[in-house]
């Protein structure tokens, strides 16, 4: 659906005295049916990439095509479901009237706008806020309104920039359901986020950007499979401290001084054997989980200590 060839973007001041490279030589293909995550530290180029995809900015070098068209031409014809990082909606509009406007702009037929708006208000828990001014909304409600307007149309191209920013845990969980419901073979969904756990749960692939470069692409689904021969860190929790622990895991470190939780390191197969020994000795293991996911490991490897 989308092809990027050697895509680069450099910001220049008016007189050209200040040059800031934002993206450097991205080559990539994004297909319909995918959910693609975009991760990276602040200033990595995530939002610049999204702005280029929407045709809001022009590349300094390279090409970007959506189904063969320049992004702006494609967006003006088909539209995209877009949630900006900072939700900016005129404060004097009411919530319901804002959604009516965005549904109309998105091309919802006039006879179906009211029905669509009601569904969005209901679906995003804004039914009771419909008559409120946008400026009166809390941060979380504003973010939900931002999500609702992004999905006012039925676009096959959805871009969500920090979608769970400001959402409470309940709505963060519901957002995952929203993305799962959005999935369909004809639709491409891009999610830019600092929340690696969220990307790991939702995305098929995660692009890791650092200083404008595409450092690596992590395929999700392999999250629980550390590379063979690589030392990994796991957390081990026991129902109660057990004397066999020191023998099974000689290097175990207590986590934050807690009595029954330890950080253990080693190759995964060796850790499994040690856990089996521990259980064999009568210890009750209540949890054994990777301290960081595959995506977190890849992210750390790609960007170093920048986080």
């Amino acid at each position, binding site marked *: 659906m989308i092809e990027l060839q050697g895509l680069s973007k450099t910001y220049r001041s008016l007189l050209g005295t200040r040059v800031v490279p934002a993206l450097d030589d991205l080559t990539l293909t994004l297909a319909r049916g995918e959910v693609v995550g975009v991760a990276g530290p602040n200033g990595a180029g995530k939002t610049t990439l999204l*702005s280029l995809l929407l*045709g809001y900015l022009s590349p300094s070098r390279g090409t970007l095509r959506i189904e063969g068209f320049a992004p702006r031409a494609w967006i003006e014809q088909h539209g995209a479901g877009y949630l900006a990082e900072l939700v900016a909606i005129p404060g004097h509009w009411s919530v319901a009237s804002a959604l009516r406007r965005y549904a109309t702009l*998105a091309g919802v037929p006039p006879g179906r706008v009211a029905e669509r708006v009601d569904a969005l208000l209901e679906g995003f828990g804004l039914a009771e806020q419909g008559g409120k001014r946008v400026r009166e909304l809390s941060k979380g409600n504003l973010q939900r309104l931002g999500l609702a307007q992004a999905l006012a149309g039925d676009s096959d191209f959805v871009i969500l920039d920090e979608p769970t920013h400001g959402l409470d845990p309940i709505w963060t969980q519901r957002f995952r359901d929203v993305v799962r419901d959005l999935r369909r073979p004809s639709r491409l969904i891009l999610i830019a986020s600092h929340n690696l756990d969220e990307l790991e749960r939702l995305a098929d692939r995660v692009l890791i950007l650092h200083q404008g470069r595409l450092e690596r692409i992590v395929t999700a689904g392999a999250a629980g499979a550390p590379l063979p021969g690589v030392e990994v860190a796991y957390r081990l929790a026991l129902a109660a401290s057990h004397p066999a622990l020191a023998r099974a895991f000689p290097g175990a470190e207590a986590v934050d001084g807690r009595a029954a939780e330890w950080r253990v390191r080693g190759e995964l197969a060796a850790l499994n054997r040690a856990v089996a020994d521990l259980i064999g000795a009568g210890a009750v293991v209540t949890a054994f989980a990777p301290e960081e996911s595959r995506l977190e490991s890849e992210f750390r490897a790609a960007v170093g200590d920048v986080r």
Partner: protein
Amino acid sequence: MRLPTRYAGWMAWDLAVGPGIPMAVLTVLAALVTSRIQVAGPMGDAARAACAVILDWTAIGLTLLATGGLVSADFAIGHQRTLFAKPVSPPLYYLQRWLLGALAVLLGAAIVGQAIAARFAVPMLGLTFLLRLALLYLVVGGLVFLLSTVTRRDWLLAVVLLTWQTAIGLARSMGLTEGPIGTVLDALLPPMPLLHLSDPAPAGPELAHALGYGAAVLLAALAVLRWRPLARGARE
């Protein structure tokens, strides 16, 4: 093909409840003032001239209100990022809003014109009046539209330019002449002397000048909207 007229209704509503309110206040004030000016006796000609000036500046004021912040208000808060992810063309979106502003100015100025016509018992409204009003809107409204695509202080800058233009006109009437740089700068300013609503309508080269200026600023505004970035970088 989705037509921009699909959102003309709420755009008109936003215009009515936004700039429409100060426009209505200005219209009512101007109509009241012109209806109370002394018209009998030796002051009649002066009153008529005063009404003509009030009509001109009311039309200009209405135009500034209708077009001020046309583009810049959205860009100032980053709303364009949300707007133009929808299947919407920025030039067509703002052109439609500009045209709705023309209708509002036409309505307001027509009310003031009608008040003057009634007071002096002279025909004021008619096709010629409307065409001259349209020409004024094309020139002044087009200029503010263009300024609005590049600066947040569009109407303020327009007021400065119009004041400058007025000052130059006054200087000329006092017999002062301008140098070559002044002549070039003067060509960049809107041809306000050709736009007085109660003067004889411009014709020939003067009409071509006014039309050409208005068309140029309007097309320049649309071109800027077509080619300018809709985001300024990572963050607004």
